[in-house]
């Protein structure tokens, strides 16, 4: 199931080693990272199947390695829920959020540096309103005041972002 169309974005993201959320140091709780790319069709299909990733006790990020290949270890943790997602510097947009919609336990989301994230994307984040604690929207050039008005729907979140 290898895709030959690995993108440069994946490679550049893979060079980052630890958490890309600049705020809190990683806690002892389970943290799973999943790099999603719009072209990563296999992962998108797997996500759309029933809940997976309920693993607690995992404290490393799942990410693709330097050559862009993604390890299949996450398949061992089929029933865990994803708690942190970092899709920084990808081309994720409003439609791409479909893939994340089922993750009801999401606590951290980082879309830092995504060029396609705009106000409509922010207006859709109400889905995570009960669980989202950290949201990183730094370096997203297409966000404006109208989108920030949408963030009032997130109740527990602590937002930070730089233009």
């Amino acid at each position, binding site marked *: 199931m290898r895709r030959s169309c690995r993108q440069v974005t994946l490679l550049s993201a893979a060079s980052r080693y630890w958490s890309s959320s600049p705020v809190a140091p990683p806690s002892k709780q389970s943290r799973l990272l999943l790099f999603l790319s719009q072209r990563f069709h296999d992962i998108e299909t797997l996500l759309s199947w029933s809940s997976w990733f309920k693993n607690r006790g995992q404290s490393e990020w799942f990410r693709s390695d330097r050559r862009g290949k993604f390890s299949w270890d996450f398949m061992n943790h089929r029933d865990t829920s994803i708690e942190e997602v970092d899709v920084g510097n990808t081309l994720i947009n409003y439609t791409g959020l479909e893939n994340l919609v089922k993750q009801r336990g999401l606590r951290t989301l980082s879309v830092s540096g995504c060029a396609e994230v705009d*106000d409509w994307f*922010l207006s*859709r984040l109400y889905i995570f309103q009960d669980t989202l604690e950290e949201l990183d929207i730094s370096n997203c050039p297409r966000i404006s005041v109208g989108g920030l008005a949408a963030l009032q729907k997130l109740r527990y979140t602590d937002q930070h972002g730089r233009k």
Partner: protein
Amino acid sequence: TCFKDITSNALRPNRNNNIFLNTDLENQFKAFREKAADAMPGSDWTPFEKNSSLPPERADIVIVGGGVVGWSIAYWLKQKEMIRDGVRVLVVERDPTYSQASTVLSAGGIRQQFSLPENIHLSMASADFMRNINEHLSVLNDDPVDLQFNHSGYLFLASEKVAHIMEENYSTQRYAGAKVSLLSPTQLKEKCPWINTDGVVLASYGLENEGWFDPWMLLNAFRRKAISMGVYQCFGEVTGFSYTTNTMTTAEGDKVDFRRIKYANVQMPNSLEYQPVECAIVVNAAGALSGKVAEMMGIGLGPKDTISGIPLPVEPRKRFIYVVHCPNGPGLDTPFLVDYSGVYFRREGLGGNYIAGMSPEEEEEPETNNLEVDHQFFQNIWPHLAHRVPAFECLKVKSAWAGFYDYNTFDQNGIVGMHPLVNNMFFATGFSGHGLQHSPAIGRAMAELILDGGFKTLDLSAFSFKRIMTKEPILERNIV
């Protein structure tokens, strides 16, 4: 143009023997072909100079009214035509400054919280359009469209009396796919601490695709794109129609007049000069003045108990909007709040300004011969505002303006479709305050009706003129 294409294909030399390519002879042939096409009847050429601000002598579709609905229809007609220059569309607008146009004087809100499924689908389709507006309306080498959409959502408050209506509406909205949530008074207080929940039993909050935007930007985006696609624009007033009448007799022996518009007379502003535009279809998108345009065709001027005696029930209704400044107000998080008393307000900009308004009772409707603001009317609004939001007890009215609703006196919902007696007049009017938010979807529906013969994506047959003839109103319960 058809003639031109045929002749140019026939006379063009084969690419393989390119002796004639780009020579003077080839250019002369081309000039001859163009002259021959112009000499044919149906071309725009006239031997003497005419005033260039006049509309063309012939157009396929004339859209009366250059507001957001009119330009949306023009854009979608061009978008859906099967071949290039398939239809010639002319938009006639009588006021180039748009000083009295309802579009630009609107508060600019969009919501999915309606009680009719058709209205909900129209709003959702329009929001989808606006989300991808640059895919639809961007013009090459020009700035991208920025609607300045504020995603604040609408918050409707219900008292004891109307809470059951709100619950029914909520299930209709959810079934149609709108993302709405119901809030109890405690949840409401937690979400909006600045609210006074006294008297509020239930609240309905739109989570997605709701908010407000800049109507002028949307109008200009449609206009710019439509003109770039070849729509003709004319600033003039439609003062009358020339039509042919076909009288038929019913089974009971009554005579019925079927009319067909042949020419639309467009008069230039401040001048007696007019141009009769020969047209195939006329779209009445004149907003608050649609009733007058319909009268020009004799709709409503027939004997009282016949179909031709039923007028188009659209008339202008004046509504006021007041800009108030309140430094301690709700702030950035303010949704577009609509109280059960009819008062609404929303944030305007980032400087502590809000705009507020209220729909008056039937008996208190203001005069519609001008757009003067009645400042006394604000005294009716202020107590409700201050009761609902205690911070609004000290506010200052900075300015105000008035605009017209194209109010459908029959059931406050749009009239979309053909008239039964005037075979080529289409209506897209009577939206009573929610024309702007439905305009992209209405434009697409009208284009489908005209070019494809029927509705394809959204079925708006519930909004046809038929319900006015049979006197069966479809009431929208959530009118602001």
